[in-house]
């Protein structure tokens, strides 16, 4: 999954995307009958996830949309190994998930960069913690990722010296540092203004096409979900259930100006809106 071997894929993205949409990849994530119950401070139990099944194939870009409090973040936290389910199983590449895995990279709502580290120190953090911060190959890979993310020349800046969009791109590079199979993103662009967000969506698509990761992205924005996703999974309000799994049949690379007005986009957006009402 190195970037170098993906150069061809990057040059001819529509083919790669078509392969993805035909379901060529094997299942990477399999979530079956997952239930998650939270107990509140007052002592009540809240059913956050109710019998959720989800399969994500290798190389797929899946967007999760749903109203606030529908358990999207809970599902993502389970996949990240930050929480454990009360019932059901989830597996990554055939192995049961029960804790954080180096095969999973997480991008949080806020960039969550450590302010006392430079950009380079921040994106190197997963290697440092994994004990491979001197691996020349991995360091070269990181520098390549920084370049793709448009952060070349900013390696020695501190996070407070970057714009919000650049901080979030650094967070994406950090999540990719260990070359994980799966990238989890929890409303990564929610804190950005609309124009920056649209540009970030295009950049994320570019990074994704270049790296061919499997991505699960949570968003509040229907447009963002349709623009980025191969599939859009719609969740219901609490208790969180998956109510619809829609395929986005738009070729890649998608361009905002073309995708947003297209008839398939409009139809999908209408369908999702009706489901969320």
């Amino acid at each position, binding site marked *: 999954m190195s970037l170098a071997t993906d150069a061809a894929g990057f040059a001819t993205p529509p083919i790669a995307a078509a392969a993805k949409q035909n379901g060529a990849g094997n299942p990477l994530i399999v979530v079956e009958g997952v239930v998650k119950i939270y107990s509140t401070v007052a002592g009540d139990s809240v059913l956050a996830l109710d019998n959720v099944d989800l399969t994500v194939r290798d190389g797929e870009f899946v967007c999760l949309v749903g109203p606030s409090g529908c358990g999207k973040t809970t599902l993502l936290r389970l996949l*990240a*190994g*930050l929480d454990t389910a009360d019932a059901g199983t989830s597996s990554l590449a055939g192995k049961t998930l029960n*804790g*954080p*895995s*180096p095969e*999973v990279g*997480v991008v*949080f709502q*806020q*960039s*969550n*960069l*450590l*302010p*006392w580290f430079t950009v380079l120190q921040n994106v190197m*953090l*997963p290697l*440092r*913690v*994994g004990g491979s911060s001197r691996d020349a190959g991995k360091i070269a890979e990181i520098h390549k990722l920084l370049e793709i993310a448009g952060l070349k020349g900013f390696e020695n800046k*501190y*996070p*407070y010296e970057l714009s*919000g969009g650049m*901080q979030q791109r650094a967070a994406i590079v950090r999540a990719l540092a260990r070359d994980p199979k799966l990238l989890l993103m929890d409303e990564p662009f929610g*804190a950005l203004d609309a124009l920056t967000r649209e540009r970030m969506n295009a950049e994320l698509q570019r990074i994704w096409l270049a790296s061919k990761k499997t991505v699960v992205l949570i968003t509040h924005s229907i447009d963002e979900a349709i623009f980025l996703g191969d599939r859009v999974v719609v969740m219901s309000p609490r208790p969180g259930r998956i109510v619809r799994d829609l395929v986005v049949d738009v070729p890649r690379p998608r361009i905002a100006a073309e995708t947003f007005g297209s008839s398939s986009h409009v139809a999908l957006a209408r369908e999702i809106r009706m489901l969320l009402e």
Partner: protein
Amino acid sequence: MADVRTETNALDLIAMSAAAAQSRRRSVRIRSIGIGIAGFLTLLLVWKAGVIVLKVPPYILPAPEQVFVALWSGIAVSPASPLGWYMPLWSTMSNALLGFMIGASLGLFFGSLMAEFRAVETALMPYAFALQSLPKVAIAPLIVIWCGFGDGSKVAMAALLAFFPMLVNCFAGIRAAEVERLELMKALSASRLETYYIVKLPSAAPYIFAGLDMGIVYALLGTIVAEFLGAQQGMGVAITKAQAVTDVAGVFGALVVLGVTGILLHLVVRRIERSVIHWANRGKH
């Protein structure tokens, strides 16, 4: 051509407004320094006038110039002279700094342990509270009994007083580490020790510096108190010696020296703080 000219004008305007802002800042600074000097001169004048008008004898309150003479007589001597401020100040400072380093390190160590392990917190918190509410200066006689009239007592007293602000601040600072950052470390499968020194300790840095700032002044205080109780040298001894011969001007001189020293130590800590935690208060995300 018109475009070029407007652009030049705009650049000129920017340069002019920057220059104006700079000169405004400079005049504000000059004015505040001026106000400071004027306030100080007024204080000296009121002091002098009060001493003359109320006929205060010099063994109660000396006139400002007498304090200045006492201060100067301690400055204008050889650094090795026992009559100057240098020897006692060196003695006090070296003991205070050694005690500060010991107390601050112990505070950092136990504060970290308490923040990291609930069991340690439960076991130590009651004692920490009890000792914290006790006026620690009241322990000084005990310490003199245990450590004698030498430098040991002074170092112990300084360490004791520097210990608590560090303990409390380090504990609070580590506990205040942001949940999101801790989860990031968890998602990376970081060890407890890695999480401690990569996230928790830097998160606590602003608190720790507040503790250091308090601790250094407390260490000086502890040393002086130990010196009052019986010692051969130090600023505390210089004060008690002057007091014994009702050299009130000498006492004032020693207080000025100590005050200036305290301010300098505070400024040194602040300077280090600014360069170490340059990232604080610059927006979190």
